């Protein structure tokens, strides 16, 4: 795929300048002795989809997991630096990590629906956060989330079937529906399409496009075309450094760093 094509795709949707929803300043992550992320700063806006790209092991997932403090669950991980959600420090003692994770949702690389019914998969989040007062409200949330995730027509007759009985692509959209059911402000996606076939991937990409503007979306991907198709901002990581962060069209057509250019054009990675 030539850079021309990429430019054409990326050029369709220009990035918008807007106030950042989340900011990260000088974030370092250590796994025991290993320095996995070396002072990264970035702004995430609601209006743009942000893509993280870079060779394997460069710290994309590590950085993504900083935004909802999922690194807290790893025993030997240590995070320093400042990350803010709407100006509020997410590491501050008064920040409740459970609420943070409801506000900053996450979709994982491998679809991981709960081994419960489709309905229950969606309803679980709203229930634990008390978002629905009545059964009717809960039904509405479930319907709306599944519709937004583009899954409603496929599952509306089998809401009581197990979520694990769906196909891989359906499962991943179920996970996205589950994430948006708690009405987050940010959705973090870690290689959401790596386990999916091209058709399912296409559906998820369409979905991301539709969700743009409503939620701030950050997506990690190894697929350059995908980054070009769905994102307006792209960050290129290399060995724990944020090498370059710019509009997607710029990154794919006129990167300032030679390391970025080499990676984009497939010369290493």
């Amino acid at each position: 795929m030539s850079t021309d094509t990429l430019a054409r795709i990326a050029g369709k949707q220009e990035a918008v300048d807007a106030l950042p929803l989340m900011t990260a300043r000088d974030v370092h992550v250590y796994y025991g002795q290993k320095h996995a992320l070396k002072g990264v700063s970035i702004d995430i806006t609601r209006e743009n989809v942000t893509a993280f790209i870079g060779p394997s092991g460069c710290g994309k997932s590590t950085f993504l997991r900083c935004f909802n403090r999922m690194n807290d669950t790893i025993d030997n991980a240590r995070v320093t630096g400042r990350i803010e959600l709407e100006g509020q420090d997410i590491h501050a003692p008064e920040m409740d990590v459970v609420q943070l994770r409801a506000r900053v949702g996450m979709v994982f690389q491998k679809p991981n629906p709960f081994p419960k019914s489709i309905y229950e998969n969606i309803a679980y989040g709203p229930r634990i956060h008390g978002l629905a007062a009545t059964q009717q409200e809960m039904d509405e949330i479930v319907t709306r989330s599944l519709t937004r995730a583009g899954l409603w027509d496929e599952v509306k007759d089998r809401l009581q079937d197990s979520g694990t009985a769906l196909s891989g692509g359906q499962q991943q959209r179920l996970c996205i529906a589950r994430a948006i059911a708690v009405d987050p402000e940010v959705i973090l996606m870690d290689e959401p399409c790596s386990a999916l076939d091209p058709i399912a991937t296409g559906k998820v990409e369409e979905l991301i496009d539709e969700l743009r503007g409503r939620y701030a979306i950050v997506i990690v991907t190894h697929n350059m075309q995908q980054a070009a198709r769905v994102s307006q901002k792209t960050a290129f990581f290399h060995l724990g450094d944020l090498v370059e962060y710019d509009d997607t069209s710029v990154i794919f057509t006129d990167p300032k760093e030679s390391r970025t250019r080499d990676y984009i054009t497939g010369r290493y990675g």
Partner: protein
Amino acid sequence: MSTRAEALPAAPASGRPPTDWKSPDMVARVKRRYRSETIFRFIGLAALVFAVGFLALLLATMLRSGLSGFVQTQVKVSVELDPTLLELGSDRSGQALLNADYLSAYARGLRESLGPAGPDIASANGWTALREMVMADPTLLGRTVEIWVPARSAFDQYAKVGIDPDIPPELAPVSSEQIAAFERLSEQGRIRTSLNRTLLFSGDSTTPEAAGIWGAFIGSLLTIAVTLALAFPVGVLSAVYLEEFAPRNRLTDFIEVSINNLAAVPSIIFGLLGLAVFLNTMGLPRSAPLVGGLTLALMTLPVIVIAARAAIKSVPPSIRDAALGIGASRLQTVFEHVVPLALPGILTGTIIGVARALGETAPLLMIGMRAFIVDAPRSITDPATVLPVQIFLWSDNVDRGFVEKTSAAILVLLVLLLLINGVAIYLRNKFEQKW
């Protein structure tokens, strides 16, 4: 792209000739592989046959000597329920009926309906049946009733296996005159074989024909209930805490090693511990299911902790991520997602532990559950015994009637264990998650 396409045919140029899949070396290798597979399959099958053979042998032995214990030779006795003989007077209250002299009436009935050998042939405990009948229906007083009572163990054995030719006549449990009397009764239709309700529904006794496992069975149930009530929640909570909440450090490593160690400690040591702590220090009642249950709980606890930890560990981490990722707290994640998924494993482990506790004898002997107890316990603080201890006590008894009872009780215990393991399999299949 084009450079790679050119590189492909260049591969043989590295100097290695193409692999010859038909060379003698290759053929020999394939043959060797087939041969080792065949040998392994044979060895595996032999091991299986060996194991199953032993089990079958055990079962067959038990069945051969124990099955006859489930039937009983009975004698028909006619007894006149004469109120004067019963020393009843005119009082017909329940208390009076309870204390009446049934034994005399029974003894006379034996002599009159069975002849002089009657008291030797029929069980001396048969009068209790009379009391039950009169208590249930006082209008029977003054009438003559016919009851079937167990034959004495010696005649039961005679009816079942005949005369043991190895025993010299002067030592035989039944004399030839008694046998003649027994045969006469048999011709009169006063002897029958019927299901042995005594074995299943009576307590222990010194005479084999009156001894049953009911008391021990109830004792076992109460003991296991105490064990389960303590060991299951404590074991599962410890496992959850260790797996999901405790930090990994020296202390938790030490605890882990200790728990694994405890699981391997011989059970009699738990009995000594129970004796020292529960009986001597805490002063709990001796021989009680409460103390037995506590002791067995100590023994079962490490088994449950280990099984539960393994089950919790095997829940895929992606489920924890999923729950935490939408803002479930750690507690919610663990108890609403992880534990339910680990439940089949936890239950299987628990049931294996409980089955082991159910068959445990040594520690219960230490805390005095070997006492001779006739009545079934009514609460967990009543003195009681348990099935395996009952089996142990009976097996000590030389009377041929008890030998049969021992095997029959073993069969009951085996059936109980089979049921428990069946429940384990049912639960596992019911809760098992299909991914």
